[in-house]
């Protein structure tokens, strides 16, 4: 500012002559500022102090000002405008004469020339805090408090940086130049840094609302550069998830890329699983870590029990358990006691979790696999625990299903490769009888419950029995069929259904048709379409039979003719 030295001396010389400018005095006294309450107010007052004419203009309007004041305002504006320009362009804009005149006028007003360049604006001058509030609206005390916190944060950041540099030096085996000793980061320094990090995170959150998640603030993850999530435009099904999850995933991407297997990775998977237990990749990565680090499988299973109980509907947990057992099995397979012990533990847990959710598909699916894997066929406890579940709820079809599996897939007598719907010559007769009896007893408890009916039919087919072998039992549930609306009673539509099959098996189409017709007309109308379809199938079979008989007769005649 070339005229600075002049300006600094001039006012003193002209002071006495200009103090009498009446307008200036009026405008200044009129806007005598009250004590500022907010930071922005204080800035505004400071701004106006250096621009006396601006305050007057704002209050009265330019046209109402005296000629002198108008001139003062223009000079003031020009001065602040040109002050922002570099010296060279300033002189190009205003000739020396004009410049001189401006300074003359300004000095005459005795105002403070060096002031705030920009008019203070809410949000812009002091910025916005983490809640979106204008920092300028803070009281002076509150602002000072914030300012102290910022200083504290800066100090912490400096110390933290020193620490990080020391860690780096230690890694590279540097020697301290002054003492000549090797640089070692002590436990105490690490502890101090941990405290520092948590303080920094708290301050950052308070000042700027920045969420520095657990990982970014942790010394443990110091050396990992997280890979942030990037997504092109047009993304569908974005999910509003917490910042903590996003942070954890960015670290997961980083460690998966470098194929790191370490305790910290294991902890990272636990952290993510606690937020989203359905992430299959995270589970796979967890298994990889456990196997790579050679960690104890029973310990992992114990941990997994808690997670499973907390997330009953989860599918991935059971796949993980499956992998763990596959991995663990070879280490105990030659030790019958260990195997029995492990089988017992698993069953105890399965019983516990099924008591919470008796029909959980994933649990049952794991259970059937486990029976095969550990060879729990002969284990009486397995059958007993299933019986208990059926006693508690005779409609628990999952339990019925598991029962069929353990009874009829036992490799001791079951033919390998036989499908569940196929008959098996090797299944012992007494077993078939026992299971038919069991199912029948359960039918009596609730005849309209389809589970034992399906079970009984399945057992008969597997045990190569005619369905007719249970005709007597089935007829107990069908009273006077076709003998009039008042007389006829059906205690179970499933009985009538099976009876139709029994008659068809015996080639008694009329009776079979009657059963189906009564189901369609009265007893099970919502399946009317299905029963009608069965009736159609019946007539078709009848025709086929007729054709078959006809052909056989024809064949017989040909034979006879020959």
């Amino acid at each position: 500012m070339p005229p600075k030295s002049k300006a600094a001396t001039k006012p003193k010389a002209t002071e006495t002559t200009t103090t009498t400018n009446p307008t200036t005095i009026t405008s200044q006294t009129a806007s005598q500022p009250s004590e500022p309450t907010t930071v922005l107010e204080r800035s505004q007052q400071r701004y106006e102090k250096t621009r006396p004419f601006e305050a007057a203009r704002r209050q009265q309007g330019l046209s109402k000002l005296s000629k002198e004041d108008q001139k003062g305002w223009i000079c003031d504006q020009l001065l602040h405008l040109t002050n922002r320009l570099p010296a060279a362009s300033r002189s190009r804009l205003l000739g020396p004469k004009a410049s001189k005149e401006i300074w003359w006028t300004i000095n005459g007003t005795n105002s403070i020339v060096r002031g705030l360049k920009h008019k203070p604006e809410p949000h812009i001058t002091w910025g916005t805090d983490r809640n979106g509030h204008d920092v300028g609206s803070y009281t002076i005390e509150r602002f000072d408090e914030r300012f102290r916190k910022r200083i504290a944060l800066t100090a912490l950041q400096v110390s933290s940086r020193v620490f990080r540099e020391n860690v780096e030096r230690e890694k590279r085996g540097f020697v301290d130049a002054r003492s000549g000793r090797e640089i070692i980061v002590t436990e105490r320094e690490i502890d101090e840094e941990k405290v520092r990090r948590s303080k920094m995170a708290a301050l950052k959150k308070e000042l700027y609302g920045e969420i520095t998640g657990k990982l970014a603030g942790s010394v443990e993850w110091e050396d990992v550069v997280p890979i942030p999530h990037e997504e092109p435009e047009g993304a569908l099904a974005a999910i509003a998830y917490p910042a903590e999850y996003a942070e954890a995933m960015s670290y997961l991407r980083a460690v998966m890329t470098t194929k790191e297997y370490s305790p910290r990775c294991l902890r990272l998977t636990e952290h993510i699983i606690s937020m989203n237990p359905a992430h299959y990749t995270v589970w796979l990565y967890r298994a990889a870590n456990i196997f790579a680090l050679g960690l104890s499988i029973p310990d992992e299973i114990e941990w997994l029990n808690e997670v499973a109980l907390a997330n009953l509907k989860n599918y991935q947990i059971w796949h993980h358990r499956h992998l763990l057992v596959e991995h663990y099995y070879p280490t105990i397979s030659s030790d019958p006691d260990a195997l029995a012990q492990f089988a017992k533990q698993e069953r105890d847990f399965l019983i516990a979790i099924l008591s919470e959710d008796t029909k959980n598909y994933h649990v049952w699916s794991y259970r059937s696999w486990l029976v095969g894997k550990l060879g729990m066929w002969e284990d009486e406890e397995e059958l007993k625990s299933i019986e208990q579940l059926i006693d508690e709820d005779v409609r628990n079809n999952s339990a019925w299903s598991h029962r069929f599996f353990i009874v009829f897939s036992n490799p001791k007598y079951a033919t390998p490769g036989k499908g569940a719907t196929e008959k098996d010559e090797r299944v012992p007769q007494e077993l078939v009888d026992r299971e038919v009896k069991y199912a029948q007893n359960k039918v009596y408890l609730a005849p309209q419950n389809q589970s034992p009916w399906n079970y009984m039919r399945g057992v008969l087919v597997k045990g190569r029995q005619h369905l007719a072998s249970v005709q007597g039992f089935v007829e107990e549930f069908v009273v006077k069929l076709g003998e009039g609306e008042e007389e006829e009673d059906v205690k179970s539509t499933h009985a009538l259904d099976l009876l139709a099959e029994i008659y068809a098996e015996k080639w008694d189409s009329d009776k079979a048709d009657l059963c189906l017709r009564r189901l369609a007309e009265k007893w099970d109308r919502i399946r009317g379409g299905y029963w009608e379809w069965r009736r159609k199938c019946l007539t078709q079979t009848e025709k086929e039979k007729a054709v078959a008989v006809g052909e056989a007769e024809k064949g017989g005649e040909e034979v006879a003719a020959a």
Partner: protein
Amino acid sequence: MDNNDTEAPVLDGCDQPKAQEEEPEQEWPYLDVHRHLRYWKMCIRAPLPHIYLSNESNRLALAYFIVNSVTLLTPPPSERTPETPEPLISREDKKLMRKWVLHHQHPTGGFVGTSSLVFPLRDYDTYNFDTKTSDEPDHAGLANITSTLFALQLLALLADEEDEAAAENVFEGVNRVGTLRWLKSLQREDGSFGEALSDLPGHGRFIAGGYDMRYCYIATAIRWILRGDVKEGSPGWVEDFDTEALARYILNSQTYDRGFAGNSQDEAHAGYAYCAIAALTLLDRPLTSTSPSTKPQPHNSPLLHSSIRDLPGLIHWLASRPFVYLEPPPPSASTDPDTYIYQEDDLDDPNFLLPPTPSDLLCLLDTLQKEKGKQVNVAFNGRTNKVADTCYFWWVGGALANLGHLDELVDREAARRFLLEKMQHRIGGFGKSPGSPPDLYHSFFGLAVLGLLDHEGERGKVRAFDAGLAVPRETVGVIERARGKLIESEKKGGKGFDEKQTVRGKEAVEMGLELRGDGERPKWLGACGY
């Protein structure tokens, strides 16, 4: 998938649909298209609530539910009138979404389920594509079988229907050969499929995922969509997976009660029954539809009908899934049962509400009809003695449709009435069970089954749906044409890209290499055809 506690914000001005008089010509219950579209609009415009975090690893599935539903509710261009509102997803949006879907493609084939597991390409530097040995960064961007099908379906669903030429090119950029090779590598010795390839220390490369009929179905769908009829030795030919072993595995999974399970030793389940049946139909489905009729004619699969051990038994099991839905009593005597909206908890305890004997039921239904004029509601469950759930109407309906028995065996009126009256939510969408809030999964399957039923009430409102490929009929046509185009472009020498694209691609690669700056050529480039 259980999203029962999905919290959906209640929109302003939403009364009971009964009170709404927008479509006076139609008698309640009807499909309130307006509200459904509003629900889907909300799912597109705003991030999904936190409850969907469990689906974060498979966001493509959620995207599939959204785009498929919107397509189902958007009339094809030929049926649009000046009164038809603008499609919810514009042509420009579709272009962007398409790019987003392609962004999930794994460099070795297949698609990754979520963009949060799409890794920057440099992470494949150490992967040896020839030997497929594990100097690959572990799990980096694992391609997943489920996501791959959803990605392909999405690409077809996002076709610009107003531009035939563009629609033919929807698979442009898909690594067809890589995906089919990768698919083959997911097949286990027993014929079944896993969901992803992974490395486990001490176990080497293994096929991850449970023994799950869903993966088997998905494998057949991906095969049908991409494989085509390329002859051995021609460019673009890929060795097929062992379809016979797969069929054997599926057929072995029929259970003693004649349904189908995830594998031969588990409980029969309607979702798995659908997968088993649909998979078998896709194994011998012709590559192009013979008649582009509007009424979906399911492929009458010779393989399906000839191979199932107990087909009448399977039909019996499927026909056993519908049941008379009786409302549970309201929680207290003072509540009016006609206006009370059932909460999820109310249904928990008596999970099976049928009266003890058939005559009790008949008596009850007679009373209801005589006294209150109520008609029978038919709901579907997924397993014997389980509760009503919207999605099982689809799984059972879809299975029967593939068998060619849907119209004959399901009481369409009663089942449709139940779906629209009890499962349709007042803010749009369908819930899992009566009274529960809508979620993406059930809202989509509710529409899908209406697309199968071909009920006159939904004609012109919902597009006809393909029971095998689970997309609208028109989208199947898009897939057929796009497959042909993709194979044709491979024959010309490009690898899934047309020639112009390849030149541009090469230029981009050179630029990319320069940007990498280390002067080396990463191995994966070769595998991508550069």
